[in-house]
């Protein structure tokens, strides 16, 4: 049994497997299938200052080895989260992390400030890369100045572990990561979804209500691996890798590319029990290759 524990900023995790925001609800949705407390960390869905209805239906399109979504951060707002959801999930014995989004810097700050007060939320993931909202979202994640402005503002009010989720829809993701690091991020997670589009040829219409949406699933894994590799070489803070991870082998690839921890997203839709299978598979790989800790293979790619 290898040591699977990892540390992301001040965040101590029993293993490096987290769930990606928006793919695992608040964890409860999967409790019938697995003991969710055995997951290293659960990132609950995108939370904003005010209630958001999200985008109209249809919000999903199946694509080759993946899917597009345009949910658009549907959530009941941070106050509802604090009053109604937090009490339900605060005693789940793993790291419950909140993904925070906003339309402007003040929104991000106000939301982060409120979540900072919740004792059982040890970290937030700052989403500066949602492709499915009109203002804010990805806008902050596609320029160094935008990233710097929102991360430094949130850093001032948020005292615990601050993970910044980066957009892959950029020319140079390492630059954005460096800006987030300079602005005080404890970690960066990547990749959020690639902006894509699906068309119904027979009806001559877009499949999604918003025309474009975010692409996820194994189809994006090669791009995600490349970006994790580029960012891990550029920054000093730990990198959380995600993008199309379906099994333990995929996860190992992200560690080798430089990720200190990984997130599983779309795969939860195909196998609701995949997270703990990945945890077991990582341990099996480490034992088989004679590693005593997962930390030993982070960035260990032989080039």
């Amino acid at each position: 049994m290898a040591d699977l524990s990892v540390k992301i900023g001040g965040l101590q995790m029993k293993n490096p497997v987290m769930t990606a925001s928006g793919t695992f609800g608040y964890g409860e949705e999967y409790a019938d299938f697995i003991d969710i407390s055995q997951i290293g960390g659960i990132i609950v869905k995108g939370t904003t200052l005010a209630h958001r209805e999200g985008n109209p239906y249809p919000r999903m399109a199946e694509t080759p080895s993946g899917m597009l979504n345009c949910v658009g951060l549907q959530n009941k707002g941070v106050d509802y989260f604090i009053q109604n959801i937090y009490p339900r999930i605060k005693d789940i014995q793993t790291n419950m992390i909140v993904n925070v989004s906003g339309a402007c810097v003040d929104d991000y700050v106000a939301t982060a400030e409120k979540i900072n007060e919740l004792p059982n939320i040890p970290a937030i993931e700052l989403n500066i890369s949602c492709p499915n909202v009109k203002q804010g979202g990805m806008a902050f994640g596609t320029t160094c100045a935008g990233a710097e402005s929102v991360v430094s503002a949130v850093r001032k009010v948020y005292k615990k572990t601050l993970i910044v989720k980066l957009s892959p829809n950029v020319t140079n993701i390492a630059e954005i990561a460096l800006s987030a690091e300079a602005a005080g991020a404890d970690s960066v997670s990547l990749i959020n979804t690639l902006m894509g589009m699906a068309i119904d040829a027979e009806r001559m219409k877009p499949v999604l209500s918003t025309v474009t949406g975010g692409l996820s699933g194994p189809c994006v894994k090669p791009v995600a691996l490349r970006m994790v590799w580029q960012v891990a070489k550029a920054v000093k803070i730990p990198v959380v890798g995600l993008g199309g991870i379906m099994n333990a082998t995929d996860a190992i690839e992200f560690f080798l590319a430089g990720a200190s921890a990984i997130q599983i997203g779309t795969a939860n839709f195909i196998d609701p029990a995949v997270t703990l299978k990945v945890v077991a598979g990582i341990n099996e790989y480490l034992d088989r290759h004679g590693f005593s800790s997962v930390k030993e293979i982070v960035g260990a790619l032989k080039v």
Partner: protein
Amino acid sequence: MKKHIVDLKVVSNEKLGDKHILMKLTSDAQLPEMRPGQFAEVRVDNSSTTFLRRPISIHFVDRVKNELDLLIQLVGDGTRKLATLKAGDTVNVVLPLGNGFSDPQPQQKSLLLVGGGVGVAPLLDLGSYLKSKGYQPTFLLGARSAKDLLQIAAFEKVGRVLVTTEDGSCGEKGFVTNHSVLKNEQFDKIYTCGPTPMMKAVAAFAAQNAIDCEVSLENKMACGLGACLCCVTETKEGHKCVCSDGPVFNIKDLTWQI
């Protein structure tokens, strides 16, 4: 009701016409508890084009034989791949998902179950359940033509079956909402599943006659668990997930213009 991920064995996989299949599944273990109106997410293996599971409503559960029947319309690569499964093959299923139809209120005695197309699927399980509770459900089933009617014999075992076809080749000519029974008889509750236009027409009839009415919606889904929020429908309380808040909704909670 506890959700399970189970490998089920195909007992038979019968083609019904050229657009539907009836897949009978069993398990060495006892099949999980399920309610009428709930559905299953079926994994599609060995496909280069299908990535996500396919949501399929529970058509019938035979507790004696320990068999689960799925009535599936062949709409795309995924369902066509399911049609290639043979007896003895294994299929991975997540179930039961969603909330089923609700039981009738004490004062609701005469029940009408209205189905169209493959939308008749959940009504067989519902009708059987209601019959077991001492009700005598009436099925009103619509289709384009006689050849498009599904599982009529099975429905007749459970209750009275009324039929409408658009071409008049079977039962009364027209849409389900044109059927004479709606004028001649009084119903206390209507359950319906089928094409959206049909369900809206049925809902309109129910609303006009102050009849309690539940509809089973079918939206494009990913997770089936209420996690991804892709399959939402408009309700008076805002967007709700068809997979976890539904698929059954009472029409009084929807925002349909009826």
